[in-house]
């Protein structure tokens, strides 16, 4: 049972981590809260569902097309929709409120489009739902593959942010946009890049999740909020933290289900989240500046 819980926890947590990673990059750098984040995920899930159903191409291959498209769309959302309010914002607070309101609209608009096209019904298909035997336990190949993909992309993104110049620039913008401009960083470019990256990661998450989860056009918010929980728990903009917190939440969920009571999984997740914040008001890895 222990191994089973670990496996199921990791596969679950891997996806939490991945989805949170995208949001933490997006929010951390552009400082615009994107309530429509989860719609990118669900949008990608529907795209896979449709293309896989009609063309029969593997979802993982489809990701090669869908993820860049999501990058582009997300980038456009930032440039076209958010730039005007970024320009007019007189204070970080004003920007925070405006972006919240605006992406609230985006959330509904995107959800509305999905509902119009796909209806409000449950959607589900089966791909790579075959058992893999690991350490005497069984996991679904699609979940395992998602976990591996999540870890790979997580590591890649972490490397990008921590080890490359571009990554350092992104982090700099996250901390002080004016300062960033003064060292020659194009802040608009950085924010657009981060926004696009976030959207791309969300879409990848959607592709992966769609292979084993039943989804509806209106489930985006659920993922946005789950991701936010992880992001906040880790500390805004903390990439490694988001990965760790995501995995931890997945493991907690699995262990609660296995050893305590499946009925308490969600309650415990939130309890852990709330307790974490009570003890560390800026998240586990968040640093409070003076």
């Amino acid at each position, binding site marked *: 049972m222990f191994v089973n819980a670990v496996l199921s926890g990791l596969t679950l947590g891997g996806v939490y981590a991945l989805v949170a990673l995208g949001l933490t990059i997006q929010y951390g750098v552009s400082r615009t809260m994107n309530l429509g984040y989860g719609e990118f995920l669900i949008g990608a899930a529907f795209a896979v569902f449709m293309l896989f159903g009609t063309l029969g191409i593997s979802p993982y291959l489809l990701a090669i097309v869908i993820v860049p498209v999501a990058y582009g769309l997300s980038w456009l959302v930032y440039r076209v929709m958010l730039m005007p309010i970024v320009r007019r914002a007189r204070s970080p607070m004003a920007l925070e409120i*405006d972006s*919240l309101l*605006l992406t609230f609209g985006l959330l*509904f608009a995107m*959800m509305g489009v999905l509902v119009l096209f796909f209806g409000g019904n449950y959607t589900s298909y089966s791909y790579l739902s075959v058992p893999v035997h690991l350490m005497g336990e069984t996991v679904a190949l699609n979940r395992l593959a998602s976990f591996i993909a999540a870890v790979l992309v997580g590591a890649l993104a972490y490397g990008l942010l921590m080890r490359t110049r571009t990554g350092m620039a992104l982090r700099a913008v996250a901390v002080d946009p004016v300062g960033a401009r003064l060292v020659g960083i194009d802040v608009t470019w950085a924010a657009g890049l981060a926004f696009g990256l976030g959207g791309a990661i969300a879409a990848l998450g959607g592709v992966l999740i769609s292979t084993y989860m039943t989804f509806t056009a209106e489930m985006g918010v659920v993922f946005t909020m789950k991701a936010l*929980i992880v992001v*906040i728990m880790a500390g805004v903009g903390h990439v490694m933290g988001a990965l760790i917190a995501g995995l931890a939440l997945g493991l907690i969920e699995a262990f609660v289900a296995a050893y305590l009571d499946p009925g308490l999984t969600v309650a415990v997740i939130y309890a852990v989240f709330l307790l974490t*914040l009570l003890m560390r008001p800026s998240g586990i890895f968040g640093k409070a500046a003076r």
Partner: protein
Amino acid sequence: MISRTPWPYALIVAVFGALAFTPLVASSFQLAFAIGCLNFMVLATAWGLFSGPTRYVSLASVVFFGIGSYTVAVLGEAMPWPAVLAMAALIGGAVALVVGLATLRLAGIYFVIFTFGLSEMVRQLVTWYEVNVTLSIGRYIFLDITQTQIFWQLLALLAVVLIGAVALQRSRLGFALRVIGGDETMARHFGLNPTFAKLALFVASSVIMSLAGAIMAPRWTYIDPAIAFNATLSFQVVIMALLGGMHRIWGPLLGALLMSFLFEALGSRFPQAFSLLLGLVFIVIVYLLPNGIVGRIEEAFARTRRAPDTPTVPAGERP
């Protein structure tokens, strides 16, 4: 800051006195719409009462609203109605006290998401309790409370909230909250205990929300945790208040009014494309109303007063 003019109170009493006659002239649908509207106006104003000056964006509205509803579901038939309301207020206030003590040191987005997490956890815990202790989920409310009575109760609640809000704005506590909202660290150094001030307001605002939940509950016959603690409500309240403009008492009120009409118009005309249109209209509104409705109104006033020929060049940042 310190003002004693009575006319805002008089205005509230007069307007609400007149509105009390609505049920005599309105159809039952209009009454239903008015009730929905009033409910959001109460919630948004109560939200703004705390969040406006302190700038703490709370997504916990539904926790207190739900507590109110659940109190009615559990105690509604066991007690006379005023006692039920009192219990709802009491429980809501007590929970707010605990929550407030624990959370009000969180800042910004951390507080926002914390309160969201809280509402989800409360929902899960109530569910778990019902499942494991009462062994049945979902409760029935059969109370002889008419729509008209609900309307009057909400109207009275809103009037009380507004009078309270005006009084607060002129009080030392109100001033304290503005200072805390401006700079909490600084506030401490001038003898202000931010925790106490914030807590007082948080509890007051939560009590109002609990009352709203209690008053509304008899409308639905049946409630379960998913209905009573539906996080959408928290979002709606925040969005309404922000849209209206939370730096004025009237902002959330107007926001709630506008959004209620918008929901109604879109929902009845275009049920299929409701989400899409709501989203688009909303985006447009945000572009057109940079400082909320109240901000726009104030701007318009300012413009009519200003000499028309002063040229202005915006000092924005270069792209």
